[in-house]
């Protein structure tokens, strides 16, 4: 710096005087040399600066620690089951023009499978695709990640780990080696929003850490992979309320404005539903018109409770096993009739019980738009055939 200032001093003086006469030849020479060195310094800065910018650009968008090729193997595994859930010839998938690393690869895989692709600039479309990196299980001793692929209201997710050749897995033909690394699932394939039976066609094996976690073994087992059904990821901020505003309701609200139990409430998906205690048809009658009821189950809840219990869960599971993905919907009427000590009142209890059953159905993989839950509630006992503290579950099948 000292040196530089020595070179620059003559220039400074010259400029300060605002006279660049070459007659002061010594000073001029020193000035030229100084400027030259400064320019060389600038060039160096330019090169370093520009190259660092370039590095950033080429290195961005790799989404985490995994090599793109390994990430693509994970995506390929998730996408491989999609044709069993959505017919490629009859479905077009919307893909945003901007997205995380892997979006373009998903698009390529979908095209290969025969899907139509629609480019969208936001999140348009009933089959809009999202690829999300979820939090993975950090108790496993290899690097892991959970990837979630969502198409419309179907979610496919799985947790993957990276193994190295040195770990003793090089003999497994299932693994696709990328240099020294390979992707291996460390969980079952998780499906949400659908009950469709699916057979694994991508990575069919998985590492099972159960024995390691229970300290029964030091090494995880290499086992056949499986499919697990679960509920959709929660929606941040919830769903906007959908109000019911039929004339009939408006009249009845006016009639009962003096008090008494409410005539509408919000169901599990924040759709406003009528209180069936006072008669009238199901809020969803216009939909259910096209279906035949093929089974009815009643789950009885303990007094002032939303606890489903073993028997209740068993009844729900039995119904789920009869559910057919392409033709069925489920109607639920949660009831609470008679006195309650709970602050939420009969309405909260009735719709809460319906919601509890809905949650159980969604956890089994059933799509929320195939469940129609409503309620009947009153401080007095029921005479219309609804249970006083139970839930009626109907399985409806589309008319042929």
């Amino acid at each position, binding site marked *: 710096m000292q040196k530089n200032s020595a070179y620059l001093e003559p220039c400074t003086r010259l400029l300060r005087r605002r006279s660049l006469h070459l007659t002061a030849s010594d000073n001029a020479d020193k000035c030229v040399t100084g400027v030259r060195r400064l320019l060389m310094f600038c060039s160096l800065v330019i090169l370093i600066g520009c190259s660092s910018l370039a590095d950033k650009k080429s290195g961005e968008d790799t989404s985490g620690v995994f090599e793109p090729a390994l990430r693509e193997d994970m995506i390929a595994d998730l996408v491989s089951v999609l044709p069993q859930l959505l017919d490629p010839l009859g479905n077009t998938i919307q893909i945003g023009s901007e997205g995380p690393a892997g979006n373009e690869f998903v698009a390529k895989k979908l*095209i290969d499978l025969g899907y139509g*692709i629609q480019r969208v600039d936001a999140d348009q479309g009933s089959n809009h695709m999202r690829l999300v990196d979820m939090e993975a299980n950090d108790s496993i001793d290899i690097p892991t990640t959970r990837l979630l692929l969502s198409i419309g209201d179907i979610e496919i997710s799985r947790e993957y780990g990276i193994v190295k050749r040195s770990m003793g897995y090089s003999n497994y033909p299932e693994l696709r080696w990328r240099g020294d690394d390979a992707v291996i699932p460390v969980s079952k394939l998780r499906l949400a929003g659908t009950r469709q039976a699916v057979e694994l066609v991508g990575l069919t094996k998985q590492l099972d850490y159960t024995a390691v976690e229970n300290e029964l073994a030091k090494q995880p087992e290499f086992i056949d992979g499986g499919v697990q059904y679960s509920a959709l990821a929660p929606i941040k901020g919830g769903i906007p309320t959908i109000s019911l505003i039929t004339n009939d309701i408006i009249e009845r609200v006016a009639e009962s404005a003096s008090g008494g139990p409410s005539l509408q409430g919000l169901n599990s998906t924040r759709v406003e539903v009528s209180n069936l205690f006072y008669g009238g048809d199901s809020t969803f009658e216009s939909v259910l018109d096209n279906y035949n009821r093929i089974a009815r189950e009643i789950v009885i809840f303990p007094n002032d409770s939303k606890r489903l219990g073993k028997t209740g869960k068993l009844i729900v599971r039995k119904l789920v096993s009869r559910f057919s993905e392409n033709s069925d919907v489920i109607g639920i009427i949660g009831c609470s009739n008679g006195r309650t000590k709970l602050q939420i009142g009969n309405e909260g209890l009735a719709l809460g019980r319906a919601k509890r059953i809905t949650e159980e159905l969604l956890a089994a993989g059933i799509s929320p738009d195939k469940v129609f839950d409503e309620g009947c509630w009153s401080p007095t006992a029921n005479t219309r055939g609804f249970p006083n503290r139970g839930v009626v579950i109907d399985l409806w099948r589309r008319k042929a």
Partner: protein
Amino acid sequence: MRIPVRLVALAAAVTLSACQSKPLVRDDSQFLPFYDGDSDVVAQTPLEELRALQLISTNLVSALVQIPEMRVGSTTLQVSKPRTAFGNTLVRALEEAGFGIQRVSADQGLNYVTYGKRFSETETGPVTDYSISVGEIEVRREYNLTDGSVFPSSVMLVSGSNSIVDIQLDDEIFTEQGGVGDSFISGVGSESIDGPSTDIRTVTVNDYDTTPLEKRTTQVGVLDRARQRVYQEDSKSKPVNLVGFDQLRRTVLIFNDQTSRVMGRGNKQAIRLMVREFRAGDVYSVTACTDVDGRNEQAQTRAIRVEEEFVSHGINASAVQIEPCIRASYRHSSDNSPVAVSVVQYRRSDNFN
């Protein structure tokens, strides 16, 4: 120590300009489909020709989008891998227009896309016409390619649809190239003698129309406008008379800010739930604009976004009505807080159970 200010400024300028300057590499990606294009063919085509083909493709597709039967937003077209430069720019335009594109190996599908370029020597001189067909619908126009510019030399001819009177051509994309008093005709006509047509006008192109490349109307801009016109015009020109209808459901969707077109999972789920209760004859009324002055372009865009969502669930665009401004609230133009779009489902009184 004092460093000369001019010297530092010069050094800074040199530094910045060095980082800004990019090597002049030809970027073919704008002419290629997002997936499965033929980059070799495009690379072998002169840049000027590619630009001309891009204009032609944009012009043809923007007309196609406005044909109601095409139902842009919910239609999937089947296309084979393009083998020509025109094919590449055309498939790219279809992608940008918002059509779903399904790649097929032969001519599978109800909406298989065929296209062509025909050169003929006629009594009026050489003529090149370009066309695109989807099923029964065909859009065709003649163009002159001279000295690196391209201008239409006929009206846009549409066959297979009678709903052509609402088509508006964005022919200014041609005038932006500039000219020396050249003129061309702009309008839409039908192949059949008794078919409908739009107003036909003559457009003159002068040297002062020349617009620098970077300031010209983009392909996305033209096609976006064409798509929005379909939704907007439908509600404006054929509003549904809601006398005899009753309200059934109502919801209020919240968008994060004035400019956002992203609906988010919650809003999307609400639409999905409303759609499951749809019955033939129902109408969804969408109100996005509540500005006192009665105008808000961004609100209009949000309303269209909501309509697009209904359409993607298979609801016909004619069953979604975008309401005019209800002039209810004052909102400063700089206010970027969340905004609401109200959706009401109507059903004919005699269509209830």
